[in-house]
């Protein structure tokens, strides 16, 4: 997989994700995480190699994957209801049906009663939940989450992580989660993909030896702490050559 920009950011990177898996991708900045996401969502095309979604090769992947960006990117002029209904609106779902579907999900997302508010009236955690709801409503069975919690404070972040796992276990969607937080990656995922830096490109897959459901005490188990230290060491070594 390569990108059109020079030099090739991603080269010889190949991986496979099973349906319903929670995968984290971790790597130092400049390791091509965002390029990877742009490729998967279809915003960019690979210069060589191919991308299969649900086992199919499709040149136009736009609209096929639910994408949740790093910043919430809610439109300030739209109410929460209209922001969340955006992917449905773009797919041509009738307004009433679209709004009905959003309203049904709002309570589950802890957003009951805010449908007519504007994004500026909501806290950071709530805005991220709206953004996640919007990604879910794209109707895709693959969700790409790009450092969604990096801007939140520690407590909100922990709550959001637990909440995300709960939702994922319920819906059984495939989640690809970009983060630079090792602990977050270990706590959430089935496996962690570590992107190595240029020039030697490769993606290392590390399975997380934890069962489900997860809770916060699990990350204090000795083997997880060891894994965490090992990962941090690996990433640090790559940042400072």
């Amino acid at each position, binding site marked *: 997989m390569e990108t059109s920009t020079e030099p090739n950011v991603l080269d010889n990177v190949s991986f496979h994700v099973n349906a319903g898996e929670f995968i984290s991708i971790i790597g130092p900045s400049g390791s091509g995480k965002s390029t990877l996401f742009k490729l998967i969502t279809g915003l960019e095309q690979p210069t060589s190699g191919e991308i299969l979604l649900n086992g199919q090769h499709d040149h136009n992947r736009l609209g096929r994957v639910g994408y949740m960006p790093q910043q919430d990117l809610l439109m300030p002029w739209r*109410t929460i209801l209209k922001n969340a209904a955006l992917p449905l609106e773009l797919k041509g779902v009738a307004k009433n049906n679209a709004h009905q579907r959003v309203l049904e999900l709002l309570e589950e997302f802890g957003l009951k009663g805010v449908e007519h508010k504007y994004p500026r009236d909501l806290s950071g955690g709530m805005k991220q939940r709206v953004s996640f709801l919007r990604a879910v409503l794209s109707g895709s069975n693959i969700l790409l989450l790009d450092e969604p919690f990096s801007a939140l404070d520690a407590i909100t972040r922990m709550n959001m992580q637990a909440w995300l796992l709960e939702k994922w276990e319920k819906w059984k969607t495939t989640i690809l989660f970009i983060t630079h937080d090792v602990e977050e990656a270990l706590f959430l995922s089935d496996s962690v993909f570590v992107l190595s830096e240029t020039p030697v490109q490769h993606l290392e897959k590390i399975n997380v030896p934890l069962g489900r459901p997860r809770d916060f005490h699990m990350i204090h188990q000795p083997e997880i702490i060891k894994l965490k230290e090992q990962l941090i060491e690996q990433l640090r070594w790559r940042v400072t050559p």
Partner: protein
Amino acid sequence: MIQKRNSFLAPALLVFILLVTWEIAARFIAIAFILPSPTQVAMKLWELKAILFFVHLPATLLVILTGLLLSIIFGIGIAIWMNGSKIAEKAFYPIIISSQTIPIIALAPIFVLWFGYSLWSKVAVTLLITFFPITVNTYDGLRSSRQEIKELLLTMGASKRDIFFKLQVPSALPHFYSGLKVAVTLSVIGAAIAEWLGAQAGLGFFSRRMMNQFDGAGVFAPIVLLSLVGIALFLMVIALEKITLKWRKTK
């Protein structure tokens, strides 16, 4: 509450002091055709109310509103065109900028030659003076939309049309209103200048006629009205902005 009253009181007091100073100065000088006092202007306004309100004000309003309407249509049209096509941007932008370096007052007599004393000579001046802020602001507004949101919309399968209507237009709206606020105040100036130079009715025309008759208060009375028209238009744009941009309201 007290703060609010103070913020209103300060400008009111200043205007009052200015008016009183003017009144005293005018009475001291006592040459009404050079410097009429505010009370003389107010009395003149009352005296001429029939002809000012029913003949000249409607004539000027027609010029202003027609000019503004055309300006909005042309301004938005060119802004959208420039936003959509690099060639259009390269072609129009320098012309739009240089059109503002032309002294429009100097052009007004030529418009009179072209269009006669009709409505259109005055509309042309108003259009030329108001379309610049509308075009430039709308164009900047269309380009101000966030690239990240555009990419997000694309990942949702949005078309070019979706991106235009759901992202670029709402992003441009606040900028458009900024342009319109400048334009409405300029439109009054444009109309007044045009009428001053060639018209058979209108507040600018009337003011000039009074000038020829050495009627100082008569010169000022229509100017007061012109100023009020400008303020009213400005307030209307603000009201429209508040209604259509509810999300922007600060707490």
